[in-house]
Structure formats: structure tokens, C-alpha cells
């Protein structure tokens, strides 16, 4: 799989209509501090898994608090 980018992750979040303005999300700030609650976060991960055809185990979730964390995690999988 080619390397995923921040823009791709934001595009996935935007297309899933999970937040009001996905482009306004800071890349290095926890999503939970930007209005993304636990259910929305599950929705974000679900859409990433579906679009990129990957599986994110529950035990890895604590490492995925920011968009940057998510990109690094996926690229190291």
C-alpha cells in the first residue's frame, strides 16, 4: 500500500460527514479536543478501515489521538 497522507485522512473524514468542517481540524491536536466525541471517533476509524481496507485493533486506539498519529500509525503498519 502506498503511503497515506494527512490530506487523505481529512478527505475520508469529510466524505463521511463526521464533523462540521474536516479541513479545519488541527493535525497535531487530539480529535477529542476538537469536538470529536467517542462515537464520532469510532465513525472516523470505521471509515478509515473501510476506505483503506485495513484493520485497527482496539488495543491500538490510544495511539491514534491526532490526525498526525493516525497517518504515522497507518504508514508503519
Amino acid at each position, binding site marked *: 500500500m502506498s503511503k497515506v497522507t494527512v490530506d487523505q485522512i481529512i478527505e475520508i473524514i469529510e466524505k463521511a460527514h463526521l464533523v462540521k468542517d474536516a479541513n479545519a481540524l488541527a493535525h497535531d491536536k487530539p480529535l477529542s479536543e476538537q469536538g470529536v466525541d467517542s462515537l*464520532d471517533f*469510532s*465513525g472516523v476509524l*470505521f471509515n478509515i*478501515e473501510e476506505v483503506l481496507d485495513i484493520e485497527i485493533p*482496539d488495543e491500538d*486506539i490510544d495511539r491514534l489521538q491526532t490526525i498526525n498519529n493516525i497517518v504515522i500509525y497507518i504508514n508503519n503498519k
Partner: protein
Amino acid sequence: MIAITHIGTYLPENRVSNLELIEKFEIDENFIREKIGVGQRSLKSSDEKASDLCIKAFEDLLNKADFSKDEVECCVVVTQNPDMSIPHTSAIVHGALNLPETCACFDISLGCSGYVYGLSIVTAFMQANSLKKALLFTADPYSDIIDPDDKNTVLIFGDGATVTLLQDNYPGLVSLGFDFGSKGASYKNLTNEGVLYMNGRAVFNFAAATVPKSINKVLEKLQLDKEEISRWYLHQGSKYIVDTITRRLGLKPERVVFGMYDYGNTVSSSIPMLLSEDLEGIAVGEKVGVSGFGVGLSWASAIFKKK
């Protein structure tokens, strides 16, 4: 032709507010209203059993439908929280209602998909045995198995029961087709070993991925377009999952019925609870869709037409 003609319901009067749990679980009112979609939960008394809830739902049915108990030929209860492990709860209901000895009784052990499965099973059983009248009960009192400190479950589930009267050769909702399925390999995500355990993320992923496919499958099988379905009754797992399925299927939100805010997720009762409110208003020729999903992990979707 077997049809759903009347639905009786019962919700215990006692309510427990989720708003009082905001501080305990570090959530806000918006999360309760817009995501969980449950402001208060119906709670039975501790000595009430599944059969007691069924009997209350039957009393409501008697107020809605003109029929005699002596005519009932089949009595089925969908539950995974039976009064006791032996006998089947339908036998207890049968005895309490003094139904005829010629009436067949059995339980169906399914959770949130149970009502849709039950409709298919009972319809087929009636057709195979030339039965005219059957009662399909749903009652799964989860309050007996909920851990009050578990945020994943305590905010969601409420107690309730329904009973659907199915009759041969009567006007009502007639099934056009079903789709069923299971992911037994994932059963550990929703279990009861004394206390209910739910991996909310796994159950959400399952529902978001599977239910739209199931609904599309039954539509394709019947060569119907989703625009031809006037109302959708999805299992009320949470507002978030109902909204997610609505969005992923591209359904018009105004056609998707939502109504769990005042009593919670009543498991196999959630679909008939909502359907009971609309049943009389569904016009002849109108088609409605239903889909139940959850424990198992299991799902069942169907399309009905008012005839």
C-alpha cells in the same frame, strides 16, 4: 395470506434519567440527545419478569384488536432473558393468559434481530400448518443484567415488551421478502455472562458495514428501489447508529422513524414498538422496510406491504 394486523405494547411507567449521569460519565447533554438518543430509560420493577411484560403488552393488544383468546393457535416469545432457563417463557405466558391447549408454544433465542426473524418464522409456521391466528411476543428486560457503572450499556437499554397479532386473510402488513445473516465469529462482542458486555466499537462497525448491505440485498431481490419504501424501521440501537445507516444507505431522514428518547433501546421490541404507533396510518399499497441487528452478531431485514 398472513398479515401483521395489530401490535400491543408495554413500557413500564418508571423512568431513569440519563441526564443525571452526565457528570458520572463525563459526557454532555448534546451527546445524550444527538448521539445516544436516549434521554430516559424505562425500568421494570425488580420482581417483574419477561412473561409479566408480555402479559401487559397483551392487555394493550386486547384494547386494539377484536379477537378471542380461544382462537390463538400459536404463541411465540422472543427473549434472551427468560423468566427461567426451564421452561420456555412462552409456556408461562400461555398459562397466564389461559390460551387453548391446542396452541403451539415456543421461544426464539435472539436479541435485536429477533423480531424480524420471528415474523418470518411465525409466518412460515402458520402457512405450513394452516394456522389462522398467532401471537409473536418480544420481551428482553436487560435491566436485570446491566452494570450501572458500565457507560457502554447503562445509557442505552430500556425495558419493554410487544405482542404482534398475525392473522391469515386479514388486511395488514404482508411480508414481501427477507434477508438474514450472522457473523458468529464475532459473538464475543455482545455477551451476557451474568452481566451484559458490549464492545461498542465492534458492534457499531458491524452494523454500519452489514445493515446497509442487507437492506440493499433484500431490495435487489424484490427488484425495488429504496424510493419505493415510504418508511424505514431500523432497530433503535442508538441515534448514532440509526443516523449512520440512514446516511450510508442514502435514505431520506424523514422516512426513517426514530423514537427511543423516552424509553431507550428495548432490544427485540424496538421495531414493533415504533411500528405499533404507525400501523393504522400505513395506507394500502404502501411499503415499509425493517431491519434488526445485534447479538450474535446477527441481522435480519425485510420489506412489507400493506394489503
